[in-house]
């Protein structure tokens, strides 16, 4: 046995000169070139010739006092896998390239200085652990590209090989002498000449400092400092800008709004508080002693009761703008950020699952149709999915739920929603920093990453954004965050701190400012551990470097806290104290660089008053399509719906996410006999020795919003709830979140649609007794560019409201899935069909226009969910699927091919309104809310009908042992198809290699 373990050479290098080494690692001949394959895969989307030939190497630049033998030993023992790879090692710039590659174009891609390079960090730690004397490590990729035109090479470099917001490109050989480690800066206190500035100068200052502040806000700051009789320092101005930013304070939605629609004008003092919060307050009052909300709309995530021991926290964030510029890093830091939200809720929740929802333009968009400065949507989608995958999987948090919506209006503004659910002991759900607690930061070091992220998030994107906002883009390091999570939960259980919050947008400024709001704080900026030298005090204060958490640690707990962190190699540093002064005092060494009253900071912002208008669009009958013959007239419509991008299978994404880590998976995202049918909601058991489950689902209908945002909102809530109920969740224990992503809300018509959606949320939430517990908004999602004719163009995203639902399943043994189970079982429709084709997927694929948008009959919905839940809990239901995009026909088709069983149904008994213009069309494809298809055993028929008493249910037909879907109307087969052809239509569009 002992001979299997070799002691690594103990490398010492006392006399060796510091050298920059270059290690290039190639796949062995005949083995796949993964890096090159990735590029070629993307080339297909960029109209690059198929004849393109690319080879690639991955590599490391290693700077240290090492000689040739030492670097070769390190390479062999650590960097190269000799079974599949070979390495070429040389001094940087002197690499000998294999003859077969030497006449190809050589292109190096390296991370820009200061950009997080997790691989390099790990490699450096590992090499140093062997005793090697290493100063710095960077990774790179090298590509060898076959003969191409200058234009092709440029397109390849800019769009595929390198993302210039985080990377730089070197053609030919690397000519680098040494890896830049940052320079020692000199301290210089900066003041901003503000008090005497006129309005134009004020706005010029706001722009120059990238503050994104309005004139009134600048004037308020000016008045404040005039009253103090001094000029502000740069750090004071930055702190105010960050605290007052849209991203951090939600000044639009939580501000005054004068809203006018055809029923009159309504003035809100605080729009969110009077709509969505108000609904939750009312629900809690009604519930009285049965109130199961614990902490809503005040902490980083909303918290509700789970069982006697635990509560659950839930938060969904958006990370849109960074994802437009650098999809991988944007999604990475999006998921990393929302995980820190739940970690920083109460005294810290343990993350138990993720949900991720994206909106993109069609990946089939022609390269020639892209506006300037925009990345191809297929590349964005691949980058975002990889970013979520690499971060979520590394954190060991199962990604169990998600959705993707496609619309061309997302072309300049893709949307990335990342959500996380955390489990928190009931007695750890509140926090309270104490006066004189130490301010402690743990985790990642502070660098120049993400400077101005909070203010950038609040501004509009333009074609120049990818140039001016580079600093706002970051790469995450999941393992650093995993290490932080491990020690945070251990410290929580040992009661080592009194409060915690995440360092998100605004960095220390936001975290310390919020935590110390009621006490005051003194911060010693020079103590913050830095990634490299040369950061100014302001950069330290507002940096959005990832993977940092801020704690309030009582002085007598600090030593134990520090030791715990040290035992798991997590850096912990005291950077200040919560001093009971009511002031925020910022110091750098002995110099006071900023002094602001918490009162001015948090309450000094001038109220924003905005106008909002909503004019209901005229509704028209459905038009613009050719009536279908009854006999087999609708099969191709069904096939088109199943193959439309929104409905099509997302297995390419789902299977890249670990959805089973933590060992609590009950209902997976893909279900059925071949594990490939579209489940309605995922269910997990967050406590391994308990049978209680959490169901996670979502609802989103941007297309309905084009017609009426009120009904879009209620439809999305209904969809999220019905997805949860469909798998067995108790409708009286579903908590929901809102995420509003809208266009430019300074435009009254745009803000009007948002207010109208919020009113919809309020009304339905109260009737359903389904509380909102947290939410987030992202405004001004518009993209401006100059078209080839020199005209300025702006693309606004469709008004997009994501509703995320977290349901609870008392006993997971009662869960059901959507796949058909057994031939001979009966199929029922539950719910009422209206002629709701406006914004429907049938309209989308058939090119029809007009039609009514689906509405929700709220009282009926509440009863329907209660009764269906009781039928499911009594074991009466074998399978259940919600009806949404594509209506009845799509739901039955999905159930059939997921269960590998045929379905034979008749829609004659489905009731529709007398006014319906095309009855068969409405029965098959209407997207009316609160409807399900359920499968029951024939002998349970009476029991099921009795359980659903008072609810409209329609016997449709039965499950059959043939490979067909048959839907009859008026004695004729209006839809008939083999299951395999329907399934192929559904699986193929996004079945990427």
């Amino acid at each position, binding site marked *: *046995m*002992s*001979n*299997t*373990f*070799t*002691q*690594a050479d103990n490398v010492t290098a006392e006399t060796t000169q510091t050298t920059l080494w270059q290690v290039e690692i190639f796949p062995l001949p005949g083995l*796949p070139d993964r890096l090159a394959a990735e590029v070629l895969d993307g080339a297909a989307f960029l109209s690059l010739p198929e004849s393109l030939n690319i080879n690639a190497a991955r590599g490391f630049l290693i700077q240290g006092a090492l000689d040739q033998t030492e670097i070769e030993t390190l390479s*062999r*023992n*650590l*960097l190269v*896998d*000799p*079974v*599949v790879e070979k390495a070429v090692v040389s001094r940087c710039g002197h690499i000998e390239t294999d003859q077969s590659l030497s006449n190809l174009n050589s292109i190096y891609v390296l991370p820009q200085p200061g950009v997080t390079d997790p*691989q390099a*960090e*790990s*490699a450096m*730690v*590992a090499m140093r*652990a*062997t005793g090697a004397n290493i100063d710095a490590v960077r990774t790179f990729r090298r590509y060898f590209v076959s003969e191409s035109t200058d234009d092709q090479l440029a397109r390849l470099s800019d769009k595929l090989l390198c993302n210039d917001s985080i990377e730089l490109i070197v053609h030919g050989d690397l000519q680098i002498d040494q890896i830049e480690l940052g320079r020692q800066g000199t301290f210089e206190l900066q003041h901003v000449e503000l008090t005497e500035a006129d309005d134009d100068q004020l706005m010029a200052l706001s722009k120059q400092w990238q503050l994104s502040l309005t004139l009134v806000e600048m004037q308020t700051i000016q008045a404040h400092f005039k009253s103090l009789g001094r000029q502000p320092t740069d750090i004071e101005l930055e702190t105010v800008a960050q605290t007052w930013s849209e991203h951090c304070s939600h000044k639009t939605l939580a501000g005054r709004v004068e809203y006018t629609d055809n029923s009159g004008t309504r003035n809100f003092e605080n729009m969110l508080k009077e709509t969505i919060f108000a609904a939750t307050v009312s629900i809690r009052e009604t519930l009285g002693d049965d109130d199961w909300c614990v902490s809503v709309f005040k902490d980083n995530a909303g918290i509700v009761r789970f069982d006697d021991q635990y509560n659950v926290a839930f938060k969904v964030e958006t990370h849109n703008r960074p994802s437009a510029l650098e999809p991988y890093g944007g999604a990475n830091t999006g998921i990393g950020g929302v995980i820190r939200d739940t970690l920083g809720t109460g005294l810290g929740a343990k993350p138990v699952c993720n949900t991720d929802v994206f909106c993109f333009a069609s990946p089939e968009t022609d390269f020639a149709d892209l506006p300037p400065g925009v990345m191809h949507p297929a590349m964005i989608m691949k980058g975002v999915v990889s970013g979520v*995958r690499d971060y979520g*999987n*590394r954190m*060991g948090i199962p990604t169990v739920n998600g959705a993707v919506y496609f619309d061309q209006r997302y072309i300049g503004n893709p949307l990335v929603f990342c959500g996380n659910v955390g489990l928190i002991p009931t007695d750890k759900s509140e926090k309270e920093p104490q006066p004189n607690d130490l301010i402690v930061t743990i985790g990642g070091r502070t660098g120049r990453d993400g400077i101005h992220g909070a203010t950038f998030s609040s501004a509009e994107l333009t074609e120049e954004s990818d140039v001016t906002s580079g600093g706002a883009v970051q790469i995450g390091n*999941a*393992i650093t965050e*995993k*290490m932080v999570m*491990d020690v945070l939960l251990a410290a929580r259980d040992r009661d080592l701190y009194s409060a915690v919050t995440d360092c998100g947008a605004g960095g220390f400024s936001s975290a310390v400012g919020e935590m110390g709001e009621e006490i005051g704080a003194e911060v010693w900026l020079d103590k913050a551990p830095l990634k490299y030298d040369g950061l100014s005090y302001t950069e330290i204060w507002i940096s959005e470097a990832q993977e940092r958490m801020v704690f309030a640690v009582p002085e007598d707990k600090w030593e134990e806290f520090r030791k715990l962190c040290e*035992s*798991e*190699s997590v850096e912990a540093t005291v950077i200040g104290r919560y001093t009971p002064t009511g002031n925020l005092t910022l110091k750098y060494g002995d110099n006071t660089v900023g002094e602001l009253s918490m009162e001015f900071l948090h309450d000094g912002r001038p109220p924003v008053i905005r106008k909002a208008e909503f004019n209901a669009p005229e509704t028209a009958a459905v038009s613009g399509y050719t009536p279908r013959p009854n006999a087999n007239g609708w099969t191709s419509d069904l096939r088109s719906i199943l193959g439309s991008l929104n409905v099509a299978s997302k297995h390419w994404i789902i*299977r*890249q996410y*670990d*959805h*089973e*880590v*933590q*060992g609590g*998976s*009950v*209902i997976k995202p893909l*279900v*059925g006999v071949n*594990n490939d049918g579209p489940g309605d909601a995922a269910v997990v058991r967050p406590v*391994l*020795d308990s049978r209680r489950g959490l169901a996670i689902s979502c609802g989103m209908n941007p297309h309905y919003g084009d017609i009426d945002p009120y009904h879009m909102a209620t439809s999305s809530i209904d969809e999220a709830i019905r997805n949860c109920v469909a798998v067995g969740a108790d409708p009286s224990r579903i908590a929901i979140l809102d995420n509003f992503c809208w266009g430019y809300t300074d435009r009254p018509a745009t803000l009007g649609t948002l207010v109208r959606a919020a009113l919809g949320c309020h009304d339905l939430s109260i009737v359903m007794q389904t509380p909102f517990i947290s939410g987030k908004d992202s405004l001004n999602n518009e993209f401006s560019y100059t078209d080839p004719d020199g005209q300025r163009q702006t693309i606004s995203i469709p008004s997009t409201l994501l509703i995320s639902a977290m349901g609870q399943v008392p006993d*997971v*043994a009662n*869960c059901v899935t959507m796949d058909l*189970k057994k031939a001979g079982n009966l199929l029922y429709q539950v719910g009422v069909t209206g002629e709701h084709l406006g914004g429907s997927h049938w309209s989308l694929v058939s090119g029809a226009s007009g039609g009514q948008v689906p509405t929700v009959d709220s009282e009926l919905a509440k009863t329907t969910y209660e009764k269906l839940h009781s039928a499911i809990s009594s074991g009466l239901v074998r*399978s259940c699927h919600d009806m949404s995009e594509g209506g009845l026909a799509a739901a039955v088709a999905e159930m059939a091919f997921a*269960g590998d069983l045929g379905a034979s149904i008749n829609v004659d008994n489905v009731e529709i309104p007398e006014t319906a213009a095309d009855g068969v069309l409405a029965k098959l494809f209407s997207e009316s809310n609160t409807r399900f298809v359920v499968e029951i055993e024939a002998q349970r028929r009476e029991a099921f009908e009795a359980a659903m008493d008072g609810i409209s249910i329609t016997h449709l037909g039965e499950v059959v042992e043939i490979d067909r879907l048959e839907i009859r109307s008026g004695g004729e087969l209006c839809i008939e198809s083999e299951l395999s052809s329907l399934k192929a239509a559904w699986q193929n569009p996004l079945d990427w*290699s």
Partner: protein
Amino acid sequence: MKPSALILRAPGTNCDQETGYAFELAGGSATYVHINSLIENPQELAKHQILCLPGGFSYGDDIAAGRILASQMQRRLADVIGQFHSVGKLVLGICNGFQILIKSGFLIPPDDQGLAATLTWNDSGRFIDKWVHLKADDEKCVFLKDIEHMYLPIAHAEGKFMTRTDALLQALSDSNQLALKYCRPNGSNGEVPFPHNPNGSTASVAGVCDDTGRIFGLMPHPERHIDGTHHPQWTRHGAKPEGDGLQLFRNAVNYFA
């Protein structure tokens, strides 16, 4: 005294809790020990009967999956693990743990050119989470005693087993060390194409044991199929009293009974 499993944690380990829970459910006990702490106090290992390297992304799987922790363990813990194994105790590596056992040479000794076998990128080039059918050979591997077939999930990007030489593969096969293989749903051997062999592993290898059968590494996750409701089709057939993976942990625990 219940047989005790030391569940080794490192930066990026993430299947430690559910793996420990599986040992407990199988009648053992679980202790979670951080690599830093084990290096500081290597004698801790001797208090336990089973060393388990659970799944995750140790040190981010940066450079290559499991490589950095493997190097660290090789340098700092080789003797103590060698000692632990030589007195008849068990070592189990699941997923990332298997990658570590391979890349440290603990499972398959290196030769003069370095590692003789590896777990490298899936043929698809991507991480994949899916369920696979597995056929077990319990001739040598004590963890697989009386197990013929298992249905378990995989969740990895670098799980393709390869040896540098065909001779090594043959030798491992001849000595019943290729103990767990991907198979078709009907259990048939022979050519096992994608997706049944999910990563392109040579000879469909999913798990390997050492020549004593007491060190075992596998890519699939037995701890993710210990409950009846873990099975992806339990709503079709009803939940079984326990999942296929639990027997593997019970075998480890009962080895010391």
